[in-house]
């Protein structure tokens, strides 16, 4: 089978799964539905591995021409290169594990078949996003994942208590994403009007080989628009507030869409468009500072969240900020490396939290958890690994990938390194707080909940274990060249040798001693925070405060820096106000009244004029004679 056939099969599998489950799933047993959806995912992953092993140079698979007009052509075409294959591996790999997990997690849900339909559909859209050979295809996938995200966030829309809130969160996510999408779309128009094509390779050729130099402002415009699109999907300031709300969806969804895959679409977009961004240093700077601000702000907000999933959500936002810092510095492969490891440990953490929530009978508040380590040991161990990985504990995957970005920051600007370290430190603080509050201390929930506490079934713990292994060893993919020289930076080389644009970008690496120094500092900091958290939460037994007790910075952190309130005041309320006012004043009064007024005016005129119709014959005759006489006089004078 050629690579193109394999590729089409990979694409078709989730779609077929979605179609079968969507149409027939209602009447099929749950086991069949789940097995089908998960089965196609594992098959797709296996095929992706085949591609990974066999494709070593860029390859295009033309499907059909969607639009062909005078000036341009938009194709349904797929592109195989290192970047798209790598993303396919992440999407199908992490995706299959999460599908497997969902089989257990959603087993009691009535919309079981719908859930798997949406999940498969999401994978399909995500694959279109990463595999398309042009921005048009990317946009298809881009909005497709947005719809699936909408459907899955609002999955429990008819829930008696939370139904409305869930659907509001879904709507918020879709609309904020739409704002970003508008930016992206305008970016597409800019590219199209400037270059006449949306194909990545054609664009790369024009920029890198033909050396076409558009104006600085044009490049700024294009990249800024693309970046706006990325801020929407990847939850950056100012369009990040939807992601924490998106936690209203079922937990596997949060793991799959809102942590591991969809939110990294923005990163993917920038890496894909590296040849544009490399020519727009201004946008790179903006990206860097936006990422930095997001990373800091989100980490700060995560410090005092009490919903286990919200903490992880803000952590995701913060990590994405970190990734944009990396992209802003031109460290594309480092960013992809972190995307990969982040997919591992964040999916692990989310699935772990899902397992915790499952055990706690759908309770998400960490204030009523505690001491869970003896009830759910596997979840405990894997969650601990995930926490250590994200906190940057030595030799775990997050340690390497984060360190890579930090190393770039040192070379770029020590100030940025300093600020990033604050964010990294906060990450460790809130993650250890979460871990200790959930798994250590005494159980604080109701006795009923305690009675129900149980470890999850194998189909839920197995993905946890696999992801835990990946989180531990994921760093091997891109080892820094500290100890040994051979075999290091494997992933960077893999991506660079076969991704347009990346091959020409010089990657700088720190000298060994500098690298050692940085790593040592990071390790030291993590250990100190680990120890400090242990003292505070385990030895002294500090607990999370209730909402009323919060004050000062804790309140601000808990209230997410009041972003939602500010947006409400700045955008939502004025828009609603405008809608009502415009309807009341312009539509009803100015336009409608004036139309009816005009009709009334004609009526009034008629009222006046009709008085002349006296109904008396003599009067009519009088006017007639008068008319005749005046006509006669007029003609007499005229001639």
């Amino acid at each position: 089978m050629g690579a193109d056939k394999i590729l089409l099969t990979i694409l078709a599998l989730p779609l077929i799964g979605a179609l079968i489950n969507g149409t027939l799933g209602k009447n099929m047993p749950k086991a069949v539905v789940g097995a089908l959806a998960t089965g196609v995912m594992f098959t797709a992953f296996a095929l992706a591995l085949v591609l990974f092993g066999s494709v070593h140079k860029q390859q295009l698979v033309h499907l059909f021409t969607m639009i062909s007009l005078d000036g341009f052509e938009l194709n349904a075409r797929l592109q195989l290169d290192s970047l798209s294959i790598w993303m396919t591996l992440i999407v199908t790999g992490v995706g299959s594990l999460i599908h497997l997990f969902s089989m257990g997690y959603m087993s009691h849900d009535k919309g079981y078949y719908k859930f798997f339909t949406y999940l498969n559909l999401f994978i399909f859209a995500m694959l279109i996003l990463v595999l398309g050979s042009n921005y048009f295809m990317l946009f298809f996938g881009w909005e497709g994942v947005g719809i699936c995200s909408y459907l899955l966030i609002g999955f429990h829309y008819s829930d008696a208590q939370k139904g409305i809130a869930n659907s509001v969160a879904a709507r918020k996510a879709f609309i904020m994403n739409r704002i970003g999408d508008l930016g992206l779309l305008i970016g597409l128009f800019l590219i199209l009007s400037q270059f006449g094509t949306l194909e990545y390779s054609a664009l790369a050729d024009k920029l890198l080989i033909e050396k076409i130099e558009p104006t600085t402002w044009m490049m700024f415009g294009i990249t800024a628009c693309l970046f706006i699109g990325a801020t929407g999907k990847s939850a950056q300031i100012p369009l990040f507030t939807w992601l924490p709300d998106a936690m209203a969806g079922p937990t596997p969804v949060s793991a799959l869409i809102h942590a591991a895959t969809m939110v990294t679409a923005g990163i993917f977009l920038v890496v894909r468009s590296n040849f544009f961004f490399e020519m727009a240093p201004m946008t790179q700077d903006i990206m860097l500072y936006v990422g930095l601000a997001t990373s800091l702000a989100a980490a700060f907000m995560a410090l005092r969240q009490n919903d286990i999933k919200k903490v992880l959500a803000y952590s995701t936002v913060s990590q994405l900020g970190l990734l944009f810092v990396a992209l802003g510095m031109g460290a594309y492969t480092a960013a992809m490396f972190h995307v990969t490891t982040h997919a591992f440990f964040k999916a692990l953490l989310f699935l772990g939290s899902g397992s915790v929530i499952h055990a706690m009978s759908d309770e998400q508040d960490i204030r009523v958890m505690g001491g869970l380590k003896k009830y759910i040991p596997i979840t405990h161990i894997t969650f601990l690994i995930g926490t250590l990985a994200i906190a940057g504990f030595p030799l775990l995957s997050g340690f390497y990938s984060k360190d890579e970005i930090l190393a770039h920051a040192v070379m770029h600007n020590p100030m940025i390194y300093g600020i990033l370290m604050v964010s990294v430190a906060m990450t460790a603080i809130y993650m250890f707080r979460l871990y200790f509050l959930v798994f250590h201390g005494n159980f604080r929930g109701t006795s009923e909940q305690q009675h129900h506490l149980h470890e999850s079934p194998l189909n839920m713990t197995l993905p946890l274990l696999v992801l835990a292994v990946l989180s531990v060893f994921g760093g091997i993919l891109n080892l820094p060249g500290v100890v040994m020289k051979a075999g290091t930076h494997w992933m960077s080389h893999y991506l660079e040798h076969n991704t347009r644009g990346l091959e020409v970008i010089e990657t700088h690496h720190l000298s060994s001693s500098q690298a050692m120094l940085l790593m040592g500092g990071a390790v030291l900091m993590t250990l100190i925070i680990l120890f400090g958290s242990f003292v505070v939460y385990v030895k002294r037994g500090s607990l999370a405060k209730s909402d009323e007790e919060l004050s000062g910075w804790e309140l601000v952190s808990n209230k997410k820096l009041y972003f939602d309130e500010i947006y409400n005041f700045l955008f939502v309320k004025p828009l609603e106000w405008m809608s009502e006012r415009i309807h009341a004043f312009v539509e009803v009064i100015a336009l409608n009244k004036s139309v009816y007024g005009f009709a009334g005016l004609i009526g009034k005129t008629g009222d006046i004029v009709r008085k002349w119709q006296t109904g008396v014959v003599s009067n009519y005759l009088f006017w007639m004679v008068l008319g005749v006489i005046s006509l006669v006089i007029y003609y007499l004078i005229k001639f």
Partner: protein
Amino acid sequence: MVLASIFESGVSIDFYIVLASVLFAIGAVGVMVRRNAIVLLMCIELMLNAVNLLMVAFSTYHGKGDGQVFVFFIMVVAAAEATVGLSILVMAYRNIRSTDVGIFNKLKG
């Protein structure tokens, strides 16, 4: 003077025109100012006859007969009109006991 000219050259067309105009004006003014329907009908007859007079006068003046033919038509029509008009009037009188046209103002706007 006038009489003299009449005796000298016969009745000129001008006299007929003046006479017809005066008759027509009397009729028209009568229609406008009087309210008795019978008088109105009579005034309408007067106007028609003024026209008839003019027709006959011009017919003689031009030495052609078609004007006089028209007069016959008009007389027939006038007779028919008077018949219909009077019968309407009689019906109206039976209903409202009056021939005052001021009362018939159902068309008032």
